[in-house]
């Protein structure tokens, strides 16, 4: 099977800055693919390389096996949901959605009908006459989605699609986007800096750091088996243990990741480790306890209802041996 999008050793330099540095990537057709990373990690540039708004300095990009070397954005069968939505302010919602069809020369009646269909797909029936300025953020986001889908792209690119929405709306849209992707069966590639969003929506996640891909895998690969210290720390703020601490925790002398929620307090006489509580952070669903052990700070997530130690208290810690995940020295 040909991949929907392939990167072959792609770099994009801006002057001396290597925004994207020798990236190899294959995105399967029909998958929901997340590009996750902090700002400046190259994920947005990668998205723009797919849409064609950036050209690779070196390397090549293929979309459904076809080399995109000299294909401009308007000739690519991919469409984008922009971060700021980029709705045309002088057109009403219907004309915004129908824009792609207007460009193709589809006659007015047909394109308006099609626009109405897409508006109903994103649950905005009856909003066609309104101007973008009269819509809420969530509604604009749906219009941008409908507009990007009107040309029936085989790959839909979403640049921080939920970034501007408030928490509740964001969670609702996560479910909707996921359902929409399943229904349409096309490839979604979305960029986010929110690891929760990436883990909950994507089939596969690429974690970016400094213009390179640190790890590609399923959400549970990335979360449970981080390949590097960066991935362990960025995805779910794991405890990253230096080799000496790993050793004192009963492992080999290697870097390791130990998730805060995998650690439990124990009253047993020989705990796997001991730590002195330095800070407590109440999260609602639980409490994050910071402890000092072996000159290193580690965090423990105590679920709501379980007893929480006091600051200054020395507590015994234990965990399931499989929870200690060893990493390459990177």
């Amino acid at each position, binding site marked *: 099977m040909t991949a929907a999008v392939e990167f072959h050793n792609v770099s994009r330099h801006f002057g001396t800055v290597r925004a994207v540095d020798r990236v190899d990537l294959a995105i399967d057709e029909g998958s929901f693919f997340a590009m996750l990373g902090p700002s400046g990690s190259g994920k947005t540039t990668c998205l723009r390389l797919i849409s064609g708004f950036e050209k690779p300095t070196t390397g090549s990009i293929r979309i459904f096996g076809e080399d995109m070397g000299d294909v401009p954005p308007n000739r690519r069968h991919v469409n984008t949901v922009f971060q700021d939505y980029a709705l045309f302010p002088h057109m009403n919602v219907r004309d915004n959605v129908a824009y792609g069809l207007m*460009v193709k020369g589809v006659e007015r009646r047909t394109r308006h009908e099609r626009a109405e269909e897409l508006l109903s797909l994103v649950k905005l029936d009856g909003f066609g006459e309104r101007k973008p300025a009269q819509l809420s953020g969530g509604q604009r986001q749906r219009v941008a989605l409908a507009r990007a889908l009107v040309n029936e792209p085989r790959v839909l690119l979403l640049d921080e699609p939920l970034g501007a929405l408030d928490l509740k709306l964001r969670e609702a849209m996560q479910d909707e986007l996921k359902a929409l992707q399943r229904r349409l069966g096309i490839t979604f590639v979305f960029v986010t800096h929110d690891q929760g969003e990436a883990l909950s929506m994507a089939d596969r996640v690429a974690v970016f750091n400094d213009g390179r891909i640190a790890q590609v895998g399923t959400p549970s690969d990335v979360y449970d088996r981080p390949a590097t210290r960066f991935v362990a720390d960025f995805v779910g703020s794991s405890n990253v243990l230096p080799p000496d601490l790993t050793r004192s925790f009963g492992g080999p002398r290697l870097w390791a990741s130990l998730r805060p929620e995998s650690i439990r307090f124990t009253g047993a006489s020989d705990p796997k480790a001991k730590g002195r509580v330095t800070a407590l952070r109440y999260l609602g669903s639980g409490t994050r306890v910071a402890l000092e052990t072996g000159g290193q700070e580690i965090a423990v997530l105590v679920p709501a209802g379980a007893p929480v130690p006091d600051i200054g208290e020395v507590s015994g810690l234990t965990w399931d041996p499989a929870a200690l995940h060893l990493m390459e020295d990177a």
Partner: protein
Amino acid sequence: MDSAHPSRGVADRLTGVFWSRPKLLTALLIAPPLLWLGVVYVGSLAALLLQSFYSIDEFSGVVVPEFTLKTYAELLRPSNFDVIVRTVTMAAAVTLASVAVAFPIAFFAARYARGRWKALFYLGVMLPLWSSYLVKVYAWKLILAKEGIVTWAAEGIGAGNVLGAVLAIPVIGGNSLSTSYIGTFLVFVYVWLPYMILPMQAALERVPGSLLEASADLGAGGWRTFRSVILPLALPGIIAGSIFTFSLTLGDYIIPQIIGSSRFFIGQAVYSLQGTAGNIPLAAAFAVVPIVIMLIYLAVARKMGAFDAL
């Protein structure tokens, strides 16, 4: 008395008065400019309008202060009407040429120029506005003169016959560039260009780059994006600029006097009628023409949706 608030001075009390009556402060702030605009500006405009409904006694040359439309009828006399047609045609041509010349400059400045280039752009556009208008116009007279640099350069590159052919065009041609309508037109475009570039650039600056990308993303080529996205969003700026170039050309009486054929434009007609001829009513009627034309122009622009994006 022991109070949490220290005793208040006069300024403090005044602040209190304004704080509790916010409309009072607004009224005080806008009163002087409102008086200036209302009395000095609108008042004199009303006086002008009134004068245009008077007429002049043909024998004594005295203004008859009685309401009549006779003076307006006089505007339609061929010799006067020609002046209006000539001026409006020139203003329209100057405006269209300014739009065409200003757009690429404004687009470049809004989209691509950053930092030092942007400063250079503003300097380049504004610099001509800092020097005397008269000096610029006289400089152009020399540039466009028969013995001037344009003729010299045209002959130097063997294009003398091209220049000759252009000047041989009836009506707009003439003995030399500086004595033809072409010359008047060129100088008008030069002098008013900044007034077109600046509002246009401001309008284009407000168009986010992502809109152009969205258009391309949806399959539009450059020309389609220009027509469907850039132009409609830049239209308020273009209209604003054209209000300047159009009305400034309609009212100017110096450029056509120094450069061009000796035939009158509206401004010159007003100038000579209220001066030597002493025909204030006709001068006033002439002066009303640009106002009416601008009102019609704005109404049409509004109807076409030029201000929808404001």
